[in-house]
């Protein structure tokens, strides 16, 4: 049976990426002064699993690197050497190399063999130190370990294997016979070189065409010989036998010989003589089955086999707790559900014209359809939601590397990693967030000496926090660093001829840092000089329908918060009527709706109309004036006021009437038409008409500006 291993590559790649991420998490968590054995074991296991897979699937570069990792880690977890931060650095570097190699095998980018070799040498050096310090391990074991792991001729070329002193080890002669069909002379030469490194090689002239016969006398085990050969020669055409005459008394070898007497020696595997169910015991085993107890088991086994198909299925269901689906499929589903929502709304509208008494069943059916559609929509939308830990998890490494570079001591705290966010947003938020974190570290957190003299702990703290607030998700990057310097920012702004004055509020001053090319850094480091600027950060956030706010206190710290909509595709809205038009107001901006009393409406010169709502005067925005429509009512007290709250400001939206609450599918107006001031998008209503979705925040802000 031939199996194409390529079909397992993808899962191996994904698995290895996960293992690498786990490894990194553990490494970053590792306290060098008192390492947690569990962490060391977990790191070791991750390296080990990657090595196993890489070996199986023939990615020798990865095998080599993980082997070096494993060797050193093994010594660490066995306590043969103390963990040093230098090692953690080397491990992280090795992880990076493996990541690159993985990407290269995936066909994305290329791994640099020079870097790989350097890291390998570093790991080797660190692990050699172990031997210098620790009295226990002997050189031979390590070398022979490498031998057994020499998985291909290619790898052997790169890392010549050193032969240990073998005088005191028992030597066995193996008769090797294989077909050299399809093997070039160069490959054969390499193979011979490898075999010579294992021991003394003797070439026997073969009478049969295309068959090579060799004799190898070595102290290495049969598997080593097999492995040296098996990656070059087709195992089916390979025979390795122990030359019995040559066996120099060695208990284990003889025992193995005996155990395999009844069958030809099997390279790469073996059985323990006398072990339960070892092949030669099979007869005994079956005859033993007559005892009642054993019969019982047979019956159980029979019962099991009858239902084995089913149980296997159940077992595999339990194992696969998640499936990977392409994002296109999910998006297509979301789109279809969006259409379904519209169809359902159309149907509901048509059905509402029928008498609910006569058509009771139709109406209850419609209600149920509405509920089901809503549930379906919610669950489909949740497929796209991912925990923000997906991006938070990359920052420990970013912070660590940068802190080392800048000679700062920083602790990163993450709060609310399980907060879920639309996948599209997750991908887009990563870059701006990285920039903010780097900024906090570079400009915010001070060097330890400065912190101590300011009476702060030497360790700075950067906190990443994510949480839901209303219909939005808020992501905060805060630090306990120097804070923004108002004086400096204003001076810099004047230098750049920006319109500033001393009477500006802090909020307004802080917003200046979002101006293109604005930097108060005295020296431009490669940290802050790289990547996107704050203006790009702000633009990115805005393009996601989000907002960015800064709070800062000089000497105390800075908090930057990003507020994003939960999802980009669906909106809970209130439909309102003005004249013969319908508009959608996003529900999360509405605090209340009311019909005002005429006496509460006041006209203030230069400020337009205001309405008094519970002692508070709010500007009145007349929707018909903004869109130049002919309204059904012109007197404010005859219509309805929808009280909106956005960015800390309130305003009252004057409309003719309220129609109802809908969940609407947002269609971009920009991509279908063009951008319209005061409108954030459009949607298709139940009757097939298009309704515009109001850009509430912009409306409220413009009313504030007028008021000013």
């Amino acid at each position: 049976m031939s199996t194409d291993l390529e079909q397992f590559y993808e899962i191996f790649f994904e698995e290895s990426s996960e293992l690498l991420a786990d490894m990194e998490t553990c490494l970053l968590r590792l306290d060098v002064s008192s390492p947690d054995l569990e962490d060391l074991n977990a790191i070791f296991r991750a390296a080990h699993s990657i090595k196993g897979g890489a070996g199986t699937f023939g990615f020798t570069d990865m095998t080599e690197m993980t082997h070096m990792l494993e060797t050193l880690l093994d010594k660490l977890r066995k306590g043969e050497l103390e963990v040093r931060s230098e090692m953690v650095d080397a491990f992280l570097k090795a992880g990076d190399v493996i990541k690159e190699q993985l990407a290269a095998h995936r066909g994305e980018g290329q791994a640099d063999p020079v870097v790989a070799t350097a890291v390998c040498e570093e790991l080797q050096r660190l692990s050699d130190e172990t031997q210098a310090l620790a009295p226990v391990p002997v050189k031979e074991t390590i070398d022979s370990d490498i031998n057994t792991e020499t998985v291909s001729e290619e790898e052997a070329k790169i890392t010549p294997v050193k032969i240990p002193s073998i005088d005191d080890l028992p030597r066995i002669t193996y008769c090797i016979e294989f077909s050299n069909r399809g093997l070039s002379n160069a490959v054969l030469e390499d193979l011979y070189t490898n075999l010579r490194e294992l021991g003394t090689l003797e070439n026997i002239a073969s009478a049969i065409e295309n068959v090579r016969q060799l004799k190898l006398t070595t102290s290495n085990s049969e598997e080593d010989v097999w492995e040296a050969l098996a990656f070059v020669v087709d195992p089916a055409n390979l025979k390795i036998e122990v030359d019995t005459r040559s066996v120099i008394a060695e208990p284990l070898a003889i025992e193995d010989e005996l155990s395999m007497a009844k069958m030809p020696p099997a390279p790469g595997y073996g059985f323990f003589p006398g072990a339960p169910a070892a092949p030669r015991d099979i007869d005994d085993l079956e005859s033993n089955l007559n005892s009642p107890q054993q019969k019982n088991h047979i019956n159980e086994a029979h019962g099991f086999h009858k239902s084995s198909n089913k149980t296997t299925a159940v077992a595999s269901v339990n194992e696969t707790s998640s499936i990977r689906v392409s994002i296109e499929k999910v998006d297509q589903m979301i789109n279809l559900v969006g259409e379904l929502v519209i169809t359902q709304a159309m149907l509901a509208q048509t059905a509402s014209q029928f008498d609910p008494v006569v058509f009771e069943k139709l109406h209850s059916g419609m209600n149920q359809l509405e509920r089901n559609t809503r549930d379906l929509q919610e669950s489909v939308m949740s497929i796209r939601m991912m925990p923000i830990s997906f991006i938070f998890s990359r920052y420990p490494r970013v912070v660590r590397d940068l802190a080392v570079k800048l000679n700062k001591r920083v602790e990163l705290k993450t709060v609310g990693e399980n907060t879920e966010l639309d996948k599209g947003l997750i991908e887009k938020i990563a870059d701006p967030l990285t920039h903010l974190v780097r900024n906090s570290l570079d400009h915010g957190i001070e060097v330890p000496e400065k912190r101590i003299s300011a009476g702060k702990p030497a360790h700075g703290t950067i906190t990443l926090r994510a949480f839901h607030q209303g219909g939005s998700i808020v992501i905060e990057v805060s630090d306990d660093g120097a804070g923004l310097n108002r004086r400096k920012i204003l001076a810099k702004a004047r230098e750049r001829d920006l319109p500033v004055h001393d009477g500006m509020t802090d909020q307004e001053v802080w917003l200046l840092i979002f101006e293109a090319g604005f930097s108060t850094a005295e020296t431009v480091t490669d940290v802050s000089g790289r990547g996107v600027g704050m203006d790009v950060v702000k633009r990115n956030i805005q393009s996601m329908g989000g907002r960015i706010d800064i709070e800062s206190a000089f000497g105390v710290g800075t908090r930057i918060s990003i507020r994003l909509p939960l999802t980009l595709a669906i909106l809970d809205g209130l439909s309102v009527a003005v004249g013969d038009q319908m508009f959608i107001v996003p529900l999360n901006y509405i605090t209340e709706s009311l019909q005002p009393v005429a006496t509460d409406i006041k006209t203030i010169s230069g400020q337009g109309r205001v309405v008094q709502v519970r002692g508070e005067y709010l500007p009145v925005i007349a929707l018909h004036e903004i869109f130049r429509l002919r309204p059904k009512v012109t007197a404010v007290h005859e219509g309805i006021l929808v009280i909106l709250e956005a960015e800390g400001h309130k305003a009252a939206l004057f409309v003719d009437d309220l129609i109802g609450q809908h969940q609407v599918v947002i269609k971009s107006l920009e991509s279908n038409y063009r951008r319209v001031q005061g409108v954030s998008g459009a949607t298709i209503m139940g009757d097939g008409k298009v309704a515009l979705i109001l850009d509430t925040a912009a409306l409220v802000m413009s009313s504030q500006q007028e008021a000013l």
Partner: protein
Amino acid sequence: MAKTILAVDDSASIRQMVTFTLKGAGYEVIEAVDGQDALDKANIHKVNLVLTDINMPRIDGLKLLELLRKLTHYKTVPILMLTTESSDEIKAKGRAAGATGWLVKPFDPKRLLEVIGKVIG
């Protein structure tokens, strides 16, 4: 009647490869992600052969071997170690724990079937 094999490995790709290979050869396969999972599944399903990795979280392969051998059904069931550790030390430990034999990783599907065929063929 198909024989059932319990394949224990913490690496999903290896598990998938083993399962695919074995199912292709007509065996039933139950997968377990570590020693503890294997022990639970071995208690529910009385399998005909156990194929286990050595280095795994929670309960490792050697401990699993020991624990399985204490169960009546598994006293006589073949248990093969599937491992990258081909050193004699690991082999000796496996033998002491009651392993039937070993198979060195990396292995190819053909070799896997060959070994299994020898034991429960």
